[in-house]
């Protein structure tokens, strides 16, 4: 086979240098693989670019928190147990997929240093930090200019409002990407 012609009584010796031809199969497989990988990347980029809903998630979260503060006041919302119950937010989902930072009378809530919170998420007595509540960490990424175009950074929304003389700022972030689950 492979161009080796056998006659009766002839020994099976390839005198035509066909080894080179045979090894071309591997080159061919390599070539097909490269073409396949290129096409696969192209198709995936075209079809699977995804639909980014994180910014909208953050908008809705900030809107709900602002409404919640307006209805309940700030003092009654302090601490995780109060905040999640009164604002009707699921704690597990919010902690896993979102970020929240609420500041009082701060000029730059994103970079405002955080105080110390107790186990329930209440600011410890005597701590005068302007950050009065937070869920999550690393809020600095919300302030990065390049972060807006970087897919790997969470999408953040800043919302300002006043209650009486006090100025409040909410930083809400969304970092959830959809999960693909294998089914039967």
């Amino acid at each position: 086979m492979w161009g080796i012609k056998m006659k009766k009584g002839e020994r099976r010796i390839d005198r035509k240098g066909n080894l080179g031809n045979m090894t071309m199969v591997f080159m061919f497989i390599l070539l097909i693989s490269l073409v396949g990988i290129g096409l696969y990347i192209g198709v995936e980029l075209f079809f699977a670019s995804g639909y980014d809903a994180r910014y909208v998630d953050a908008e809705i979260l900030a809107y709900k928190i602002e409404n919640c503060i307006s209805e309940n006041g700030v003092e009654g919302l302090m601490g995780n147990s109060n905040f999640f119950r009164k604002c009707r937010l699921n704690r597990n989902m919010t902690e896993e997929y979102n970020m929240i930072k609420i500041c009082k009378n701060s000029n730059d809530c994103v970079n405002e240093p955080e105080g110390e919170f107790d186990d329930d998420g209440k600011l410890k007595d005597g701590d005068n930090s302007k950050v009065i509540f937070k869920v999550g960490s690393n809020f600095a990424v919300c302030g990065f200019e390049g972060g807006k175009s970087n897919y790997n950074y969470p999408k953040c929304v800043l919302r300002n409002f006043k209650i009486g003389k006090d100025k409040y700022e909410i930083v809400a972030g969304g970092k959830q990407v959809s999960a693909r689950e294998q089914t039967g």
Partner: protein
Amino acid sequence: MNKKAESFGDLLFDNVIYLILLVMFIIGFMYYIYARADGAETWGDYYAKEIVKVINFAEPGDEVWLDVHKGSEIAVKKKVKSLSEMFTIDNVQNKVCVKLGLGRRTCYSYFNEVDIIGWNILPSEGKDESGQSTKNLLYFKVVDVQKKESVGNVEGVVGGENSGGVNVA
């Protein structure tokens, strides 16, 4: 003539492995493109996120109808027959899963502390000239959190007897 025929046969035989590999590659890739071309995963991702957006905004007592006609068409084309497979809302894990093709489903979680009940695909009231419903709608009701277990009902199979006239043509 014979010599020519023999040399052509030799040529074919010499290259048969290349031809087999090439045909296998083309068939495999055509199958892959066909599987992706109708965008089942992309639409699944889109529907999951849009449904979650509506749930996050909703208040207890709201009733929601969403146009899912395009998704149901894709799902039927992809032979996803069970309604419970197409749209799943899990109140325990607060997540919405959409499956419009065989294999994987896309899931997205909502942070609003509510339960979703009565979800089902229903035909719209609007009819076209032939009297067929023009759209398939996903219906669900938003209620206060009841208890942490899966709540919801799946009443029909798309295209089946209990589909309530769902239009999947």
